[in-house]
């Protein structure tokens, strides 16, 4: 039955002018017109007339479709007013007038919760639908629906219920309150970063009603009268039901509310008490979702329930990054915390293993979750004033049964723990926690120093230290594995004497960790790093790539700004990527609304930041390491110095020579200046000629961007791994920027040949001057060539950032590795291809390395030790594939026959045949790679005349 709530507000309006203005919007469905009218009334009429006008709009059926202000609604308002603080007395009076209706609504809501408790979800959907039709819709129902959505994993009719809920949410017009929906999703999704959302919500202003509503999801207890009044008024502009629920909810915690609680209708209070005493914890629904931590993340969805309210109060108060949290606790929070942790007096009272249960009412070490154990520890440290002496070992051990201590423990206590640490283990743990907490260069440097000191004092290597720590705390190990990437290890200057050693040590660490925990993806990463090391060793040139992006800072930025958004959109999406290329219009993603467009626009924003960020992006390095003085220093000083050489002084007495050189030098300098001021920039309005475009503006970049999209989706859908997404994005950003870097290198080459070559027509000079002029030109041009070669090399993609290698280098690295494995193998290498023509990136070249390794190893094992090994690459038969062939020789015709027979046997047998093991021939692996689609068309051919084996395979180079 629809609600009819009609009061006399309209008649209370004193001014005729106001009444007339309001009459103009009777029956209006145009929210803009309503808002305009209200604004006019506000600006020209008395305050009481304005209040009565808003009350009339809220309650009089003549304005029932106004879309802005209604006490009872069937869907979200089309538009909400700017926040106006309404006096609580006005709100209380409206509540009182509508108390009968509200009491009924609360009973209905009790029924909704009871049905959920009994998992009668289909009936819940029917009931909510009816309630909405009867204008009993509220944000409470939205939250309840999301609670169900998040808690029905594994239910038989899960899909059916989800569809029904989605239909109800559509009917609720959530698009009108998109931000509310987004925050509900982010906050209740365990795969998003809680602290990140907390920070963002905290930073939003209180100017709009929706913002205040959103803030109340995180900050459920107002800490000031102002906060309370603003939030209450915000709910009031949404619906009367939500207004009452908020008021009743916070009344449980605050004694300083500017209202007299006795003024709240008693029947309403009783109805709320009925609702709030419902115990959802008695239902199995909260345990359906495997992740126990979810309960904390979901408490705001059912905050009206006392058990949710109290649980959130305790853990929200402690599980946050506020360093002053203990000074800011309210008496209510203190009493709740004290009751909840009343059994915890010492570190030994905490749990030292990961449990699977929830302690909703009171903490118990027997079955506490990670989060509960963490808040327990932080609370205890506060009780102990940061003094854990005598319990150091327990503290270190607790790192494996707690989480985020670095974030939630006040820095002051961490400093105290570090400075009083008596063991190396605690020194290391506290340095880790401080670096997590502070994220400053100072803290990171201290951590690096502690790691180095302990390693040098007690261990052979960083890996040995990590192995030792793993026996004490697996969580600290995990943290060390996370932070000790190649860049971090490079900066352990007392352990790492060359960049390549950092990659080797990282590979060792990953290899050990992957094998220990049987994680194939980590073992694969280790293997890939070893290939990088092998390739780096083969490089005969100095790597002086100056273009760089700080990977830690960039991945952190992606994590903070886009990871949650991407996760939410992917969870909501109905698209799934297989091997087909997604059809994404990158030019339009920024204006699209579909999940695909939004994810696309987030990836585009990440790439733009990768290029343009002045702190860690390419832009930073263009400025610091390249433009500022370095180019001039490199390209001018030596050229200038030739002019001053004694032996050339004579030339500058010849006016024509001097004029021509000065003209040339001016244009050379101008060219360098234009590189600095116009071209070596990120393309933007300010620098329209900048060579680096922070967009997917070319076809190769579009292909790479499509593959980035595909891999991000795969990581999420296939591997269920959202935390790896920033690393995938970083890798693809490097592949994209490589397109522009190539162009820069090409453009620099052209600039050099156009402006960097000095020529002088020496006819007319005597013989010795002619020779001198020629020598001078030769020297100048040799210097400019050399200097430009150096400058061009600054625009090489650094191998440490995102590995890539050309095919020839790859081949040489393989030969070198096989030489180490097979003694006596020293073939005559024949490589007749242009080194720079085929460069492969990331995952692709690791597969090729593996395939080549098998072929070369077979050639070494079964072929002639000093025979020919020829490497052939053919890209003429397809635009997207390359055929690689390896020609090797055997000594005699008999041997060739043996090889033929052996290979034929391998090919005949099912490749699962245990006889064809990897150690024997590797053909099994090769066929597996073919089967998995890394390579195709594996063939062996033979030349009886040359006694040659020609092995070949094809691989796809789509990106």
């Amino acid at each position, binding site marked *: 039955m629809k609600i009819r709530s009609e009061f006399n507000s309209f008649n209370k309006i004193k001014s005729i002018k106001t009444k007339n203005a309001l009459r103009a919007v009777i029956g209006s469905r145009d929210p803009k017109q309503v808002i305009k009218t209200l604004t006019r009334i506000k600006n020209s009429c008395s305050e009481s007339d304005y209040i009565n006008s808003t009350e009339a709009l809220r309650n009089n059926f003549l304005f029932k479709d106004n879309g802005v202000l209604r006490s009872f609604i069937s869907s979200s308002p089309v538009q909400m007013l700017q926040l106006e603080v309404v006096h609580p007395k006005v709100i209380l009076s409206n509540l009182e007038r509508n108390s009968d209706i509200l009491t009924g609504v609360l009973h209905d809501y009790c029924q909704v919760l009871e049905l959920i408790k009994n998992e009668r979800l289909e009936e819940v959907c029917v009931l909510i639908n009816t309630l909405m039709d009867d204008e009993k819709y509220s944000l409470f129902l939205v939250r309840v629906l999301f609670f169900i959505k998040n808690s029905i994993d594994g239910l038989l009719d899960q899909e059916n219920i989800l569809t029904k809920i989605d239909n109800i949410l559509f009917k609720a017009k959530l698009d009108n309150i998109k931000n509310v929906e987004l925050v509900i999703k982010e906050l209740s999704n365990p795969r998003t970063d809680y602290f990140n959302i907390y920070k963002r919500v905290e930073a939003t202003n209180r100017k709009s009603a929706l913002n205040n509503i959103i803030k109340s999801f995180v900050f459920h207890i107002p800490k000031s009268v102002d906060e309370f009044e603003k939030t209450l008024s915000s709910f009031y502009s949404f619906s009367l039901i939500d207004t009452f629920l908020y008021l009743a909810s916070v009344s449980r915690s605050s004694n300083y509310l500017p209202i007299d609680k006795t003024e709240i209708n008693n029947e309403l209070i009783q109805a709320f008490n009925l609702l709030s005493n419902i115990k959802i914890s008695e239902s199995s629904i909260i345990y359906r979702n495997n992740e126990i931590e979810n309960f904390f993340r979901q408490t705001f969805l059912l905050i009206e329930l006392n058990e949710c309210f109290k649980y959130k109060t305790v853990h929200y108060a402690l599980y946050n990054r506020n360093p002053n949290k203990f000074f800011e606790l309210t008496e209510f929070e203190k009493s709740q915390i004290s009751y909840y942790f009343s059994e915890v007096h010492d570190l030994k009272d905490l749990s030292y293993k990961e449990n699977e249960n929830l302690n909703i009412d009171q903490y118990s070490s027997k079955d506490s979750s990670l989060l509960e154990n963490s808040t327990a520890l932080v609370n205890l440290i506060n009780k102990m004033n940061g003094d854990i002496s005598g319990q150091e070992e327990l503290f270190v051990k607790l790192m494996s049964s707690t989480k985020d201590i670095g974030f939630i423990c006040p820095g002051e206590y961490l400093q105290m723990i570090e400075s009083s640490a008596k063991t190396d283990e605690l020194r290391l743990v506290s340095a880790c926690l401080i670096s997590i907490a502070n994220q*400053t*260069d*100072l803290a990171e*440097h*201290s951590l690096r*120093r502690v790691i180095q000191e302990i390693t040098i004092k007690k261990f052979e290597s960083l890996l040995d230290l990590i192995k030792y720590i793993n026996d004490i705390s697996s969580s600290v190990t995990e943290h060390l594995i996370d932070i000790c990437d190649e*860049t971090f290890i*490079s*900066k352990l*200057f*007392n352990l*790492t*004497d*060359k*960049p*390549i050693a*950092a*990659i080797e040590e990282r590979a060792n660490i990953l290899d050990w960790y992957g094998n220990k925990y049987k994680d194939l993806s980590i073992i694969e990463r280790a293997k890939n790093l070893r290939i990088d*090391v092998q390739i*780096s*060793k*083969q*490089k*005969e*040139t*100095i*790597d*002086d*790539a*100056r273009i*760089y992006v700080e990977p830690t*800072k960039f991945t952190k930025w992606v994590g903070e700004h886009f990871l949650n958004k991407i996760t939410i959109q992917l969870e909501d999406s109905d698209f799934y990527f297989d091997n087909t290329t997604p059809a994404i219009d990158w030019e339009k993603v920024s204006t699209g609304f579909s999940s695909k467009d939004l994810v696309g626009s987030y990836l585009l924003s990440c790439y733009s930041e990768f290029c343009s960020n*002045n*702190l860690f992006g390419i832009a*930073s*390095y263009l*400025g*610091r*390491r390249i433009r*500022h*003085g*370095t180019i*001039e*220093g*490199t390209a001018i*000083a030596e050229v200038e110095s030739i002019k001053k050489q004694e032996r050339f002084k004579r030339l500058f007495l010849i006016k024509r020579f001097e004029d021509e050189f000065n003209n040339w030098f001016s244009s050379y300098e101008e060219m360098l200046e234009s590189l600095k001021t116009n071209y070596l920039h990120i393309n933007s309005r300010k620098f329209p000629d900048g060579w680096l475009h922070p967009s997917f503006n070319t076809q190769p970049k579009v292909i790479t961007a499509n593959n980035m999209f595909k891999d991000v989706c795969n990581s999420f859908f296939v591997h269920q791994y959202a935390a790896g997404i920033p690393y995938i994005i970083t890798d693809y950003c490097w592949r994209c920027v490589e397109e522009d870097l190539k162009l820069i290198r090409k453009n620099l080459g052209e600039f050099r040949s156009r402006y960097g070559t000095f020529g002088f027509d020496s006819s007319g000079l005597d013989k010795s001057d002619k020779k001198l002029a020629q020598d001078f030109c030769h020297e100048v041009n040799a210097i400019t060539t050399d200097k430009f070669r150096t400058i061009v090399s600054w625009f090489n993609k*650094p*191998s*440490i950032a995102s590995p890539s290698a050309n095919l020839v280098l790859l081949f040489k690295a393989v030969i070198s590795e096989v030489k180490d494995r097979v003694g006596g193998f020293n073939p005559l290498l024949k490589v007749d291809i242009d080194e720079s023509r085929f460069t492969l990136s990331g995952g692709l070249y690791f597969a090729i390395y593996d395939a080549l390794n098998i072929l070369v190893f077979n050639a070494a094992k079964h072929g002639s030790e000093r025979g020919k090994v020829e490497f052939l690459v053919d890209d003429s038969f397809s635009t997207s594939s390359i055929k690689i062939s390896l020609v090797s020789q055997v000594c005699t015709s008999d041997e060739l026959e043996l090889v033929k027979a052996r290979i034929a046997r391998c090919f005949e047998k099912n490749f699962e045949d245990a006889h064809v093991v990897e150690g024997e021939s590797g053909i099994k692996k090769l066929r597996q790679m073919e089967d998995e689609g890394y390579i195709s068309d594996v063939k062996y051919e033979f030349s009886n005349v040359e006694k040659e084996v020609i092995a070949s395979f094809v691989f796809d180079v789509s990106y």
Partner: protein
Amino acid sequence: MDILVVEDDDFKFEEIESLIKSFSDKFHIKRYGNVFDTVRYLNNSTPDKIILDMSLPSHPAKPGEGTPVSMPSGGIEVILELRYLKKISLPIIVLTQFSHVEVEHEYCTMPEAERKIKELYRMDNIIIQAYEKGSQAWKDATIDFLRD
């Protein structure tokens, strides 16, 4: 008197070197062009003064040894190392080509950076000076620094 010059740009170093030599022949100049060599040197030695660049590579670039990490705040790493080694009173002049210096993830003007480094790292004897090829200001500041 030992003076350590941490500078990876040969041309800038030559200018600094010739300025020092023109000022006095009593300075013994030690030069490193990357953070690794500087840190290793500072572990065992203490120069009398340091002339420091901000943007430095992590290691020397050598064939077959991989790409050094580009450290735009490599100078800060050296400062943190000095702090750790309790050599906070060493006189340092930072000669940088950039108008802003990154300290603790924030870009600061030179006076701000100087104040922040003194405040956060307790490095009281630090001066940050803009370096510009051909300009006199950095030369004057460096001479003053050498004279003190």
